[in-house]
């Protein structure tokens, strides 16, 4: 599993896949480095599963090339690729027990029995399935089936482990613990994991790199932090986290928003959208305490939603709905639905998007 970290492990060049008249993936370029834990994130129908299937070899691209570890595998089937997949429905073999499921791939490689047993025991230990070796897989819980699917793929020591919505079928609590488990496994074996998800929180908590897809195209990639702080499009800003979007225009490096606020921001003239994250905004009873250099808006609280550690305030300001997230301990006293409030945020919390 130790690859040279300098060259990209997986390289997709101009990959396109069409189903009838629908373009599932369009001229997509993607580089995956060894050791990455990459999330392919997007809404359903964005082409992310098609992309994963093309990396695995279950679908062949109409055009473009796929290289894995320097080998062109574009036309290779899944059985010839150094990748292994954890399927969304697990795809376990129902007529085999846990051990037989996990050992199947190595048996196909005609590995000696003793060596298979040793590898199986190692991997079963790793995924915490000890004691379940002789169970029939149909008698397992969802989380346990997930572990079997994971170990069945990991035992092959794939250069790239692919996971298709790995945690989608699990309930919230199990999902959280499997997320930690996956991180732990990734750290302990140091492989390259690529997973597909529509759940932004899952992507953010698991991956060290996120790729966002929309309509078959890759629209932004980076760490969770980079994408959250500097979304490139309106879609990304609302897909990753919540966003308050204010539209306006830029002229001579100055942005004028429709809500009447102005700030300086270098860039081409024309229409812009300004993103302000809900937690960047503070609320107060009067404008007196607000410093001069902040962006301020007057508004009225519509609704206050208590979320435990946070409070979500829906505020009408300048005839639009603004969402503000404040920590439960810092909401000023006496603030209820109907209160008049002042909103403020720092100019550096503005993220200007100029989308064509």
């Amino acid at each position, binding site marked *: 599993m130790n690859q040279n970290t300098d060259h990209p492990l997986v390289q997709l060049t101009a990959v396109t896949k069409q189903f009838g008249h629908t373009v599932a993936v369009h001229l997509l370029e993607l580089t995956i480095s060894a050791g990455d834990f990459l999330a392919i994130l997007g809404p359903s129908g964005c082409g992310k599963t098609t992309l994963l299937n093309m990396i695995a070899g279950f679908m062949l691209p109409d055009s473009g090339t796929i290289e894995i570890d320097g080998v062109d595998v574009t036309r290779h089937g899944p059985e010839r690729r150094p990748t292994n997949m954890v399927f969304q429905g697990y*795809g376990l073999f*129902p007529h085999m027990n846990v051990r037989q499921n996990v050992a199947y*791939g190595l048996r196909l490689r005609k590995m000696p029995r003793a060596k298979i047993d040793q590898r199986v025991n190692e991997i079963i230990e790793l995924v915490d399935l000890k004691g379940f070796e002789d169970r029939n897989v149909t008698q397992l819980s969802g989380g346990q089936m997930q572990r079997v699917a994971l170990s069945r*793929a990991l035992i092959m020591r794939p250069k790239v482990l692919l996971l298709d919505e790995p945690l989608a079928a699990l309930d919230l609590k199990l999902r959280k613990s499997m997320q930690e488990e996956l991180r732990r496994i990734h750290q302990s074996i140091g492989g390259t994991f690529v997973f597909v998800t529509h759940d932004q929180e899952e992507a953010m908590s698991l991956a060290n790199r996120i790729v966002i897809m929309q309509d078959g195209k890759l629209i932004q990639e980076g760490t969770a932090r980079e994408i959250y702080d500097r979304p490139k499009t309106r879609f990304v800003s609302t897909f990753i986290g919540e966003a308050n979007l204010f539209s306006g225009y830029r002229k001579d490096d100055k942005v004028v928003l429709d809500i009447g606020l102005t700030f300086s921001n270098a860039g081409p003239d024309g229409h812009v959208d300004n993103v302000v994250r809900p937690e960047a905004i503070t609320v107060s009873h009067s404008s007196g305490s607000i410093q001069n250099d902040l962006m301020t808006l007057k508004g009225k609280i519509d609704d206050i939603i208590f979320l435990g550690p946070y409070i979500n305030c829906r505020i009408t300001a300048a005839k639009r709905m603004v969402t503000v997230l404040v920590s439960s301990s810092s909401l000023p006293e006496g603030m209820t639905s109907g209160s008049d409030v002042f909103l403020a945020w720092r100019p550096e919390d503005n993220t200007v998007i100029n989308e064509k």
Partner: protein
Amino acid sequence: MKSYRATTISLLIPSFSIFGFIFVAPLLYFFVVSFWRKKRFQLIPDATITNYVQVLEEYTRPLWFTFGVATIIGLVTTILAFVFAYVIRFKSGRYSLHLLFLVLITLFGGYLTKIYVWKTILGQTGILNTALMMLNIIDEPIMMFLFNPMAVVISLAHYMLPLAVLPIYGALRSIDETSLRGALDLGASRFRVFWDIVLPQCQMGIMAAFTLTFLFAAGDWVTPKLVGGPYTSMIGTFIQYQYGSRFNQPLGSAMAFTVIAISLLILVTIALVGKRILKPR
């Protein structure tokens, strides 16, 4: 809980009583009779196994022949049915329902009708002979198509095919396609996917299809009589003869129970061997 049980029992009563009265009870009666004797058209209660000894001594050839033909019919029909069911399940995409409907529609038309149809196809002035003569391949009708074991195999395989497709299709349908992709992903060739993943999962369906066709063929006596010709001596013909012409119910019953016993033996053996071969390692 109690009312559940009462409901279950009351729901089972109709089918169980039909099954009990017109299948189990007569069967038990004939089982008892098979140990009796016949004397001047009279049944004499007894506990003798001479009938069974007679069956095994005098009817060895028909027994061999019957189980040979039944095994061939079972195998041919099951293999054809499997191929057809496999195509419906995995290879025909959106036409699968049409194909399945085609299978069901062939169930229309009775057993005798189909046998007579084969008689006209294979017969002296049948379609096959006429066609071959028109093509100048033969000068005069040839008799080799009809009145031989082959005609029995063809007729019964044709009749049983749709009935054999259904259990296999049912078994194939419950296979999760992701498990096939999983095997492929782990490096299995198409053949290994088929052998290791598909076959073990539809074992029951295949066994059901084989059992159905095998038992039907082993017990049939009409088809051999109509298309089999004089040398196709299936045991069913002899059993019918014992009951119908010779009035020797004890011997007929002994024959019937010998057939049942051998059939069960063959089926259990095949099931065990199949299970053993396809057992995951």
